[in-house]
């Protein structure tokens, strides 16, 4: 088997998370190595709140998939997803698929993470130069040049495509400079002592163009329980559930809350968590590059669309967080286990995107697909085992209740909303 043979089922010699460069020789290795860097860039670039990260994952995945699909009979996403026109044709001649991927990903990473700090810039340059030099060894100059040019053309096409989706320009980390709070006891109020977070994160995000979900018709989560301070009301009952649960949290429940906390700047964020899960599986199973890119593209599109759907509802309902309600109505001294995110409560973003991710990944890898999740191993958090993707999504959703940052309805309806988003992704035709 030639080391560059496309679709080779390589037993990738590198291990997440260490990823020694010398072992990155196959297209699949190249893909996973770049994604490993992307997870770090998401964590260490201030713009990358969860919705913004999900968007980058979507475009990165599409770029990688399209660059490889053109060498096979796999179907392009052009014409299937909103606004994507036909990709540049692949000129005749021989290609090195690792160099194609290297070119497309180095360009895409620079595009979508161009605002990272000096350390990220240094890391991107080192990856581009060192991995590029490694992959070019033994490859004829004309093949190397043709591969690089084609990868660049694909990446630039995707970059142009991305600029019109409404999420291209994020300022002030996504927080509006000015914001007028809606008046009424049921509405969101800031919960943070950070000045920037006195306005909600990305209030316009719900109007972005999705990939596969119909434009302008995001999947609704459905109404939450009506706001009430009556102890007999459903809303009060759900608040009491958060409050009482916080008082009796078991060590396992605390561990679950923290495992799925996925705080921006301190983790790869919730969408990055699901990308990490997928990378671990792809690495474990030695999945070929095309199938890996397909999985990452589907996942990226799914979580992006999930955040759009979710954010549309967040701004629509503009619901207050548990910490606000509980302090006002139940116990003014109460504090949740987790840091309350700086935006409206309903539905739960993590739940929605986890519902979408589980739906998409179950379609890619199959139902009942068990896996271990070591996303936070570097942070000293032990891996967790899941019987299938849905089990992981369910745990991610309930973790927000354990953490005291969401009511039950936001989690459960968010999961359903995500699953509906996932169905649009699952309807896309890619691999034969």
């Amino acid at each position: 088997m030639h080391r560059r043979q496309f679709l080779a089922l390589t037993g990738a010699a590198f291990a997440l998370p260490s990823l020694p460069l010398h072992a990155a020789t196959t297209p699949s290795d190249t893909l996973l190595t770049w994604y490993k860097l992307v997870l770090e860039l998401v964590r260490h670039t201030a713009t990358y709140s969860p919705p913004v990260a999900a968007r980058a994952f979507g475009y990165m995945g599409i770029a990688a998939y399209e660059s490889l699909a053109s060498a096979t009979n796999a179907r392009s996403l052009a014409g299937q997803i909103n606004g994507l026109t036909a990709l540049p044709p692949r000129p005749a001649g021989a290609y090195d698929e690792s160099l194609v991927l290297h070119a497309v990903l180095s360009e895409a990473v620079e595009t979508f993470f161009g605002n990272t700090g000096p350390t990220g810039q240094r890391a991107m340059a080192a990856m581009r130069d060192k991995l590029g030099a490694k992959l070019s060894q033994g490859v004829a100059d004309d093949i190397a040049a043709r591969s690089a040019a084609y990868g660049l053309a694909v990446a630039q096409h995707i970059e142009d495509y991305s600029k019109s989706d409404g999420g291209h320009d994020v300022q002030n980390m996504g927080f509006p400079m000015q914001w007028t709070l809606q008046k009424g006891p049921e509405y969101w109020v800031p919960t943070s002592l950070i000045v920037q977070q006195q306005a909600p994160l990305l209030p316009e995000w719900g109007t972005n163009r999705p990939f596969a979900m119909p434009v302008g018709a995001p999947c609704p989560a459905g109404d939450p329980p009506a706001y009430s301070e009556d102890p007999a009301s459903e809303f009060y009952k759900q608040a009491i559930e958060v409050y009482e649960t916080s008082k009796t949290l078991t060590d396992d429940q605390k561990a679950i809350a923290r495992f799925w906390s996925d705080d921006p700047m301190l983790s790869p964020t919730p969408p990055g968590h699901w990308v990490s899960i997928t990378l671990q599986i792809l690495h474990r199973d030695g999945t070929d590059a095309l199938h890996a890119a397909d999985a990452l593209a589907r996942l990226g599109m799914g979580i992006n669309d999930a955040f759009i759907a979710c954010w549309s509802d967040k701004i629509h309902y503009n619901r207050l967080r548990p910490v606000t309600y509980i302090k006002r109505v139940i116990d003014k001294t109460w504090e949740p286990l987790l840091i309350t995110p700086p935006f409206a409560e309903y539905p739960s973003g993590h739940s929605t995107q986890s519902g979408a991710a589980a739906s998409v990944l179950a379609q890619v890898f199959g139902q009942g697909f068990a896996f271990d999740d070591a996303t936070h191993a570097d942070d000293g958090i032990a891996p967790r085992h899941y019987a299938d993707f849905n089990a992981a999504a369910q745990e991610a959703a309930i973790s927000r209740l354990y953490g005291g940052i969401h009511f039950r309805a936001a989690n459960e309806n968010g999961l359903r909303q995500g699953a509906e988003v996932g169905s649009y992704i699952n309807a896309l035709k890619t691999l034969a």
Partner: protein
Amino acid sequence: MKYLALGLLLLPAAAVAETAAPLVPSFTEQTATAGVRQIYAGDWEYMVGGGVSTFDCNADARPDLIIAGGTNPAKLFVNQSTPGGDLAFTEAQSGVEQTGVLGAYPIDIDSDGVPDIVLLRQGENQVMRGLGNCKFEPANAAWGLDGGNAWSAAFAATWEKGQSWPTLAIGNYIDVTQDMFPWGSCTDNWLHRPDGDKFAAPTPLKPSFCALSMLFSDWNRSGTPSLRVANDREYYKGGQEQLWHVEPGQDPRLYTEAEGWKRLRIWGMGLASYDLNFDGYPEYFVTSMADNKLQTMANPETKSATFKDVAFAKGAIAQRPYTGTDLNPSTGWHAQFEDVNNDGLADLFIAKGNVDAMPDFALKDPNNLLLQRPDGTFQEAGDRAGVAATGLSRGAALADLNADGLMDLVVVNRREPVQIWRNTTKSANHWLTLTLTQPAPNTDAIGAWVEVKMHGHTQRREITIGGGQAGGNLGAVHFGLGDQQQAEVRVIWPDGSEGAWQMLTADAAYRLQKP
């Protein structure tokens, strides 16, 4: 500056109304004429650091300067300013002219009354023995200091009880060899404890989380300072801000949740401390990006190690530029509390500047001068005071450089010349400058507390070495007195002994000697 004899008077009862609007000081930039020419240079390996320290290296009672240069040699500037005159310095060949220096902290390690210097370096750290008259010689070998080979960016020092030699804490940053995946590569910090009159092999402070500022401070007035560490979340994994027990004869250990410590994860970059609310316990300001913290003890009655953030309530967040059109979030570095208008309330200077060219953060980020109001809140005055410079500032020092009782300002900028301002405030407010000395060891009384009685409250400040951004002050401490023409002063010395209250006449510098 001339030190005056101490007076022994009783404090008369007095009450002076406090005004709500603080006096805005005036600073006059004298960069072009002061003779301080230095540029903190270098690429990625010098994105942090850039410290400046003030200390008297030639026993003339005027603070001299040592300024890091990064890839340029560090420089020492001897103070030639005349009392009340313009700022004037002369560059001197001192022995500290090494490259790779991120910061410098003066400290009299061997307690001979002549200050020594610790140079924090990209590479081997260096202790420099003071020879007098602003001359220094390398002393790693003589004093047994293992300078290591790391990216050292933070420093703090204390004298542990029973020791004749100090304990040095050195904070280290990223493993510079990791170019593609530097995140999570924080080098261990080191605790250099004494072995008689030299240093023992360093103790690694595990875990370490890319420290950018350290400070030994007696946060609970136990008599034994703890080590507060500000850590940069950009690079650690599984990390947080830290508070270490450093107790004589025992291994260092972290404060735990059971002791009240609450996990805080920020871009911790610079530390400053001061007892702002006159309760006897220091508040801590921690610089970060977009979100600075002002921490106060949450439960003074129990003295649990829980701190609450009051930056928002006190108007001390300084999260984004207050001048210009660039409203992206700020990046804070050096922080220092000093009373710049002598009204008896500590004010806060914050050096600001983008890490390099991060578009998510302000590129034109003015330094802050937050004036404290009588109600404990802060009001921005950097632009009105004339210090709202927008270079890529890093280290800074507020010190009375020309012995006029007004705190002047030096700011180190990345890749641009150091700037220096003379405080030219016209004010009737009064002041005191106090320099502590005690018999060896620990001649500068590090760990002492100085108390100055004001109308209805007592100003207190702890004598420390550490904090800030890669630099600090050794020697005189300054108090504004408002309209008080005299004040009762006492020292609680590092051994816990309490000096007598002494009435000091305002507008003078005093040396307070432990009997």
